């Protein structure tokens, strides 16, 4: 340890600590402009200069770069230090355009604050000023060189923290300027518009364009909440002025570490205040087919009476109700309660059915719990190697992607297993560009190598697992050469990957929909846990099997029992003791049979087995496979009710639309991908007759004859906790408490004094022994043939979230990416005479759409990829509703198509 004094206060610090860090330890503030925590100091602004005396010698140096030495006597505010800082500020002002009155950063500018504090009113070095044009080509922010103090916080944020490196200093000396290229503008580089650089800027050089609409001191309140897009669970403030959300501000949350992506920062409130919101209940006039405005009483009476009529006539199982994975836990709980208590059936589900139901089912079968085993921070900070399978986090979970990029920068090895050259593949040590639909073969190949090299963890296998011998028999056949042929990869790369993974001490598997969205999705998931168990990489730091969940609260939707087979907390509906507990609590007889899965509800609607459907916040016409089939199913229903924010594609087919409210208008909780329950808080009230979603459900329950008292969101969570052992310790009060201090609680959290569970399966699996599932490779349901020779995969892009119902309301996002496209290989394109940018017709056995070709080598020959966000050419007209036998998840990732020049 090193001993020194700062302003006379004695401090003891570890070797290597800087003076700035030491001062912060004891609460002494030293001014900084360029300093960025956790990044090597830039030392460029010179404002943190301090006076250090040691061994009778005195020197001035920057506190951010100078490491503490034994016996240092540091003065942070001596007369000379103050004079030095004044001069530094004076020099900074000499080429800073001082127009604070009209500057967007006025009142929120560190340069202004320090000039005020040190009494610098104007520069005493007037001279040449930087005269360079403002770059406003980015859709969301502008860069003004005349306000830039070249502190490089933006450059270092982008490079070191976001891990993108889109910007740097161009030119030198007085001509220095921040940019993406010496000549091209900001929008022509690789900037992802996340805006983390803007939040890092200490002056007005980088400002969000929306800052023109408000002054920081006009903000009435800042509401801390959780992002409504992906399941990373980023924390931010919504800034409210005159009852309207005007901006966001990232918060250093447990999963986002102060970062946001472009959707979180800039696409999370336009939709809340969109004029396209449905403002009052609508009932479809049967004769005209038009929606007509109704009162809440009319609409609720109609819905309740219709559902009860169908129930009476056709029985409970002719009804179904889906909950919304974008809505809070409390809302979801009430939907499944309504379906179970009022409809009298287990026909409830959520959209996890079409994304990660395979994870929920697969991991529950092998490990006992279908969720991410380790926290995001753990698998990105503590890992020696990351095995990323079928996941493109840079686009689908951007803030997780940023943390993986940081990990790689730190030296963490990366194996990418993905059919496309995704961004992270370029940074990978090994990229296994496998053929879509061959995950099980790949995993069996990895395990074959592990066993033949003797790298398995025998102790772990013996003590903590079962079924190993059976699996061993199966993987024996999957020699690398055979797997290489099935997967179209290099056998030596497979060997190398297996050995690297097995030998790394801490190595998480992170996977996503590339594993689950197959007709063998559940087996794909179980293959992931097979690999991890074989090398004992479960139940400890920096390891595990980690599905990155899709929606903000899809984890919660599964946790809350919006599934046909389980009540909240994965308590089985078929277990008589569990059922009895819920019957007692809810005061009704409950259906003892497993209900119908969402993906089976649509075929059953066509056959007439399902007559009435209640959907809360889903848009299956856009998101579910084989659109023609979905539309036919919706049209076949006797009665279809939708609780929604917008007139979606699906809404067109509803009989009644009940307008609910968005995440920014209500209290509640979201559970992110790492099982972390975090608060959602009300920021605004949007004018209109929209009602709180839980109130809509509760009113309907009462009208359907179930006496459900009106409860607040917090009271609903208390009811959840009382019935769900893994949520027993969770309440709004506790989440808001000092004890939790904004970190949320990770389930299982079994009592009020339980701290939550960051890492699962420590010492023992939830299931008891981990089970090796003997999975054999089975090809995808629809393979390319002469007529439809190309494989189509589908997925998401950075700038939109699934149906685009929310992100599509932010015009700038639509300007960046607003149209359907298909990525195809140049070899196929050449054969078909298609060039990059050409209009193409894409057809499968189920439908045909037009799109625009993006020709390159991102996909392999014979393979193509499309996003499903865009109505002008939605991939789901083409996709195949072949279902997985366990999870009933559709095969979005493989169907056969043909592409022609349009």
């Amino acid at each position, binding site marked *: 340890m090193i001993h020194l004094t700062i302003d006379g206060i004695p401090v003891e610090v570890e070797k290597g600590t800087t003076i700035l860090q030491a001062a912060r330890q004891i609460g002494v503030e030293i001014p900084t402009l360029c300093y960025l925590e956790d990044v090597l100091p830039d030392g460029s602004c010179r404002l943190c200069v301090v006076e250090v005396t040691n061994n009778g010698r005195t020197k001035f140096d920057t506190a951010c770069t100078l490491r503490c030495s034994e016996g240092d006597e540091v003065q942070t505010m001596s007369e000379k230090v103050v004079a030095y800082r004044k001069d530094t500020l004076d020099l900074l002002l000499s080429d800073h355009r001082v127009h604070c009155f009209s500057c967007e950063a006025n009142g929120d500018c560190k340069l202004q604050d320090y000039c005020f504090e040190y009494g610098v009113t104007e520069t005493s070095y007037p001279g040449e000023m930087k005269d360079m044009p403002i770059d406003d080509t980015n859709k969301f922010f502008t860069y003004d060189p005349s306000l830039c103090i070249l502190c490089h916080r933006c450059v270092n944020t982008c490079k070191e923290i976001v891990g993108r490196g889109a910007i*740097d200093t161009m030119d030198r000396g007085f001509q220095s300027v921040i940019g993406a290229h010496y000549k091209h503008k900001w929008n022509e580089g690789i900037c992802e518009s996340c805006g983390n650089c803007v939040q890092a800027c200490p002056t007005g050089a980088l400002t969000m364009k929306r800052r023109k609409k408000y002054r920081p001191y006009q903000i009435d309140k800042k509401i801390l909440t959780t992002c409504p897009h992906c399941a990373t669970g980023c924390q931010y403030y919504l800034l409210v002025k005159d009852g309207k959300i005007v901006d966001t501000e990232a918060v250093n949350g447990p999963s986002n570490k102060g970062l946001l992506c472009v959707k979180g920062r800039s696409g999370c409130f336009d939709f809340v205040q969109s004029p396209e919101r449905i403002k009052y209940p609508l009932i479809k006039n049967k004769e005209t087919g038009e929606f007509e405005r109704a009162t809440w009483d009319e609409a609720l009476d109609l819905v309740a009476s219709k559902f009860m009529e169908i129930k009476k006539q056709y029985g409970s199982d002719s009804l179904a109700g889906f909950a919304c994975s974008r809505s809070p836990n409390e809302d979801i709980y009430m939907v499944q309660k309504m379906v179970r208590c009022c409809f009298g059936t287990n026909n409830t589900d959520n959209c996890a059915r079409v994304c990660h139901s395979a994870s929920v089912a697969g991991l529950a079968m092998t490990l006992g719990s279908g969720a991410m085993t380790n926290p995001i921070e753990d698998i990105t900070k503590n890992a020696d190697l990351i095995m990323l399978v079928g996941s493109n986090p840079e686009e689908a979970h951007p803030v997780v992607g940023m943390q993986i990029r940081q990990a790689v920068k730190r030296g963490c090895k990366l194996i990418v297993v993905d059919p496309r050259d995704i961004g992270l593949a370029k940074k990978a040590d090994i990229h296994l560009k496998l053929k879509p639909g061959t995950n099980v073969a790949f995993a069996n190949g990895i395990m074959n190598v592990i066993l033949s090299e003797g790298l398995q963890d025998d102790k772990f296998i013996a003590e903590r697992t079962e079924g190993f011998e059976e699996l061993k028999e199966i993987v024996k056949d999957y020699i690398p050469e055979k797997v290489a042929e099935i997967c179209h990869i290099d056998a030596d790369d497979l060997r190398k990957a297996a050995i690297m993974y097995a030998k790394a001490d801490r190595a998480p598997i992170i996977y996503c929909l590339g594993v689950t969205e197959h007709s063998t999705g559940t087996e794909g998931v179980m293959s992931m846990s097979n690999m991890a168990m074989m090398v004992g990489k479960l139940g400890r730091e920096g390891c595990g099997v980690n599905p990155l969940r899709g929606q903000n609260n899809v984890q919660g939707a599964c946790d809350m029992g919006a599934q046909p087979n389980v009540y909240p907390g994965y308590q089985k509906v078929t277990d008589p003791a569990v059922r009895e507990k819920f019957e007692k609590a809810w005061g009704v007889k409950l259906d003892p049979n497993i209900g119908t899965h969402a993906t089976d509800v649509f075929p059953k609607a066509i056959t007439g087995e399902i007559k009435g459907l209640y959907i809360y916040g889903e848009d299956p016409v856009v998101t579910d496979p084989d659109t023609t089939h979905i539309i036919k199913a919706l049209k076949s229903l006797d009665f279809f009710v939708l609780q929604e924010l917008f007139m979606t594609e699906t809404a067109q087919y509803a009989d009644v639309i009940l307008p609910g409210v968005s995440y920014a208008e209500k209290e509640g909780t979201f559970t992110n991908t790492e099982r972390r329950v975090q608060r959602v808080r009300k920021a605004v009230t949007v004018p209109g007759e929209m009602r709180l979603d839980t109130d809509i459900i509760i009113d309907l329950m009462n009208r359907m004859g179930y006496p459900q008292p009106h409860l607040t969101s917090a009271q609903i969570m208390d009811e959840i906790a009382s019935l769900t052992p893994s949520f027993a310790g969770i309440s709004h009060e506790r989440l808001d408490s000092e004890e939790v201090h904004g970190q949320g609680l990770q389930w299982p959290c079994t009592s009020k004094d339980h701290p939550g569970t960051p890492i699962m399966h420590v010492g023992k699996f939830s299931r008891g022994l981990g089970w090796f599932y003997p999975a054999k490779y089975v090809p995808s349901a629809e393979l390319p043939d002469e007529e439809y020779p190309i494989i189509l995969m589908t997925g998401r892009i950075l700038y939109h979230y699934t149906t685009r119902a929310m992100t599509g309301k932010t015009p700038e996002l639509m300007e960046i990416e607003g149209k359907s496209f298909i990525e195809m290989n140049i070899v196929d394109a050449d054969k078909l005479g298609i060039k990059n940018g050409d209009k193409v017709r894409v057809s499968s056995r189920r439908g045909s759409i037009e799109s625009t070709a993006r020709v390159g080598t991102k996909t392999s020959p014979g393979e193509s990829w499309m996003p499903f966000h865009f109505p002008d050419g939605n991939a789901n007209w083409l996709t195949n509703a072949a279902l997985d036998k366990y999870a009933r998840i559709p095969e979005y990732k493989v169907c056969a198509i043909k592409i022609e020049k349009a």
Partner: protein
Amino acid sequence: MLDQSFYQKADEIIAFYGKKPASLIPIMQDIQGVYRYLPEELLTYVAEQIGVTEAKAFSVATFYENFSFDAKGKYVIKVCDGTACHVRKSIPVLEELYKKLGLSKTKKTTDDMMFTVETVSCLGACGLAPTMMVNEEVYPRMTPEKADELIDKLRGGEQG
């Protein structure tokens, strides 16, 4: 679009120095050595190949005066305007060159791509001031007249 030969040349140079970020500067020097400038598309290509971002590559290239994104003439004339050369009257030499070649501070290369005139801060040959360099050769104790003759000679050599 650059001709494919540029990328082949770049590949050779990259192979020589290795696909690593630390190779950036020597690769840029060699490319400029071949083409007398750094074609910007080629720098973008090099950056991607050796694993540095485009922004970083351009940041480095624009930091050093020596790298140029503009094609240079066959003869690159560097007139020293360091302190010693400046006081020994380097500016009249520069002005004579500008006048004779129709160049200026902003137009540095003749349209026939024969001559580029630049100033440098010191050639390290102050004893021979005012000094000038044409490509790799140093010309000592310059005067406007000598500069004039030199241009004629270089041109004549070209014609002959």
